[in-house]
């Protein structure tokens, strides 16, 4: 630690066990959070580079840098890592663990040991995933959706990958159980439901989905493994099974999963916007309830991924209808965020920039979702690059940006140091521009009819693919810049006080980085709402 030295090192130093074991065996939510954060970032970088490779292959028709089989493995691994190892645990497991208990005024989650266990499940899952790539007869090549009958026939290492996803689901479930219980049982005195920060609300909704949806993925993957080992034929038409049933079971989890991905992001945004507008979140209850509605309605729409699968037209009618209903709560959130800005005192600090970027990208992604939700439109768009564009807009432009916003917002709290704002802004600009170029081009080429999961494409799609690839490079530069800047900030940024942003939730009233027991000897007592900024001043840094 050079120049301005940090006097208190909070939970980094005062731990019962010192050294590496002090981390690996720690049941402290902050340390577990940090461990999650490191793994998740590593995973993101790996998968992101795979994304770059995908784009490189697609810079021109025909085989450019890899053959078909390699390409299939690449996007499969890219998808599996991004979904199960990056985006699903990203905000809940990393920032949820870091922030949630403190925001509640608790000293830890309800089941600290279970919390550690869930981290180990994550690590085991990650290891299995990596092993699956480099062992057996080749990396899985099923796409992250594991559709049967292909997944039961291919000779690649699908079973192991499925097992990995199973462990990761386990980890996600344990986190969910922990959060629901914590939010119900460990709120500090005076922390009424009406005073919960919106981040907590969104994690609460998320946790319920994690508990009630994830096991379905578990059993589905187990069935795939059994199919491959016994050839039971539960999904094999020739033996009285039904391939479409697999898709039902898979999406029963995987659609709600997309809300596991986005809800925590929305929570982050709902924290950042009020802070940097110094104004209470507009329509607190509307936003809180809309999180719960999304969580619930999200479990009603899974088959909108199956319009062309050969399922009944009646089902298409029902699911298309429900799909549009689920858009409403998201719309409400967007409107409330924007109104919060009205007559505020807005500071465009890096976290705020990412938050605004989130709103823009997520709106595009979500509105694209509406096109996909409409029966007729989806017939054309299904499994084209429009879908790829849609989910990158929602997952990367949505949750990804929210995750970066959270990094810029909370890292100073948990490291006690501030990164360089100018570089952060430039990085954001590059990332934002590059992002939109890349995925706008993908959506466009999708509308033209380019199917996804193609290593080779018809010549008429070339231009837009080149654009997308160039965009991904801009994005890459932006990202590298951002990571570099954050890293430098963590190492030797200016030391910050308790509350650099002038935020009103509990975590900003304790030292940064927080001490091991969060609040010192006696438990905190909450007397005001989470966005009541009267008398809150930002400390200089």
């Amino acid at each position, binding site marked *: 630690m050079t120049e301005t030295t940090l006097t208190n090192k909070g939970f980094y130093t005062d731990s019962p066990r010192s050294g590496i074991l002090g981390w690996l065996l720690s049941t402290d939510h902050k340390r577990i959070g940090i461990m999650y954060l490191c793994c998740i970032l590593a995973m993101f970088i790996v998968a992101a580079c795979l994304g770059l490779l995908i784009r490189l292959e697609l810079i021109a028709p025909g085989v450019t840098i890899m053959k078909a089989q390699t390409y299939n493995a690449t996007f499969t691994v890219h998808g599996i890592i991004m979904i199960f190892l990056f985006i699903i645990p990203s905000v809940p497991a990393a920032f949820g663990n870091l922030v949630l208990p403190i925001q509640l005024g608790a000293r830890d989650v309800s089941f600290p040991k279970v919390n550690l266990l869930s981290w180990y499940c994550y690590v085991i899952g990650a290891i299995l995933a990596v092993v699956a790539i480099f062992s057996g007869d080749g990396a899985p090549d099923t796409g992250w959706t594991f559709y049967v009958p292909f997944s039961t026939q291919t000779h690649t290492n699908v079973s192991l990958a499925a097992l990995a996803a199973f462990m990761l689901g386990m980890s996600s479930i344990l986190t969910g159980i922990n959060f629901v219980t914590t939010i119900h049982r460990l709120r500090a005195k005076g922390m009424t439901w009406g005073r919960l920060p919106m981040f907590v609300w969104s994690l609460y909704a998320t946790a319920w989905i994690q508990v009630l949806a994830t096991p379905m993925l578990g059993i589905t993957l187990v069935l795939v493994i059994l199919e491959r080992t016994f050839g039971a034929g539960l999904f094999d038409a020739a033996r009285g099974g039904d391939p479409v049933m697999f898709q039902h079971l898979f999406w029963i989890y995987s659609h709600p999963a997309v809300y596991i991905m986005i809800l925590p992001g929305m929570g982050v945004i709902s924290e950042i916007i009020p802070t940097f507008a110094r104004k209470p979140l507009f329509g607190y209850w509307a936003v809180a309830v809309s999180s719960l509605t999304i969580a619930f309605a999200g479990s009603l729409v899974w088959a909108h991924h199956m319009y062309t699968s050969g399922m009944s037209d009646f089902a298409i009618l029902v699911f298309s209808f429900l799909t549009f209903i689920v858009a409403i709560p998201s719309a409400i959130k967007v409107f409330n965020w924007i109104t919060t800005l009205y007559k505020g005192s807005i500071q465009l600090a890096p976290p705020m920039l990412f938050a605004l970027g989130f709103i823009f990208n997520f709106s595009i992604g979500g509105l694209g979702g509406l096109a996909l939700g409409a029966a007729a*439109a989806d017939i054309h768009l299904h499994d084209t690059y429009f879908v790829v564009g849609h989910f990158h807009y929602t997952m990367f432009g949505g949750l990804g940006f929210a995750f970066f916003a959270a990094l810029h917002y909370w890292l100073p709290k948990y490291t006690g140091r501030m990164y360089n704002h100018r570089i952060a802004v430039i990085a954001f600009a590059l990332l934002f521009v590059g992002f939109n170029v890349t995925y706008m081009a993908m959506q466009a080429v999708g509308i033209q009819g380019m199917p996804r999961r193609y290593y080779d494409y018809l010549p008429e799609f070339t231009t837009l693919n080149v654009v997308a690839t160039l965009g991904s490079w801009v994005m890459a530069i932006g990202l590298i810049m951002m990571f570099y800047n954050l890293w430098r900030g963590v190492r030797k940024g200016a030391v910050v006080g308790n509350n650099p942003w002038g935020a009103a939730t509990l975590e900003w009233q304790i030292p940064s980085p927080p001490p091991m027991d969060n609040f010192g000897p006696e438990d905190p007592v909450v007397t005001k709402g989470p966005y009541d900024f009267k008398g809150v001043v930002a400390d200089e840094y």
Partner: protein
Amino acid sequence: MNPLNNPTAQAVDNTLIYIFGFSLLLLLAITVVTIYFVIKYRRSKYPEPTSDAHSNWIIETIWTIVPILIVLTMFWYGWSNYIGLTSVPDDALEINATARMWSWQFEYPDGRRTNRIYVPVGKPVKLNLTSVDVLHSFFAPAFRIKKDTVPGMTTYVWFSAPETGSYDVQCTEYCGVGHADMLTTIEVMSEEDYAEWLKGDEQKTAEPPGLIVLNEQGCTGCHSLDGSANIGPSLFELAGAKRQIDRDGQTIEISIDEAYLKKAVREPDTEIVSGYDAMMPPYDESIISNEDLQSMVDYLLGKAVVSEPVLDGAELIDNNGCLGCHSNDGSTGIAPTFQGIGNRDVTIERDGREVTLKVDADYLRRALLEPDADLVKGYPPMMPASDYLSPAEIDAMIDYLLKQ
């Protein structure tokens, strides 16, 4: 997506335009308002917020109701147009499409198999889709139609092309290595060309009278002419063939001759080929005249001057989608190339050990019928067995390949 004036494309485009239009408006509104607020209420101008309004039930209900209305219109528009994609005109020409790794096969009402779709202009076409292995999906962007092909299930799409031309078809359900190469086209022809094309193959098979009788009488409904099994015994290469038959109680072996055949037609139940049930109706003169019977028998015994339907190996290989994996030009992609296969040695893996042998007819036959038995070294076992082909067709293919 070049806007086409064909019914299915219009149905989809209407929906797309409506939803994208609305989305664009909403997005613009949101973005503009946000930017306006961010600039107007920047902290340098307003160090403190000038209002702490934190809820207002009226506007909140408004912007709950409005989106509901908007999305409901979108939903209805999407659904009502979807109906158009499912309701096939009655006069539609029906073609059966079979997807397999990694090629398409289309079967016409007259039983002709092709690997492209040839249709007359302006005529509604209904494709009945199915798959023999994994999921595939039939996607014709120009017509905005897409439907998965599911093993053990028949799905369908329909379209109608107002202009002649060639339109791309892509596979949009991930199905393995060949997924991106599983392309074909819809060839829309003018009425005349289509009529020509239909005749096209008939000239090839100048049908001998005997065969015509067989077809007229519907014999071929139960008896195949190419050796493939069916309800009744096949009529493939009967001349002098030996058969086990049940004659009054005991099974005896006879060699097929004219007398036997005639008896089998006039009074089938007296001599039944072992293993088959007595179910064939007797055909007397009133149904099949003696001349016809004679020509039929001649044909079956190969006496008639038969211009056998020439089976073109090259065409078979093309139509059965072999080229989805095997190349003709020496490039090895998913599978070994056909170039020079006729005279080259292959190293194969037979139960673990590596064997090198010369390519010959029975090697090729094995490769076609039980591909996984002898795998060419370095290639994954993924080729489907071609046992759905008749022996005649297999022979034709092998001959062709050996000539390479």
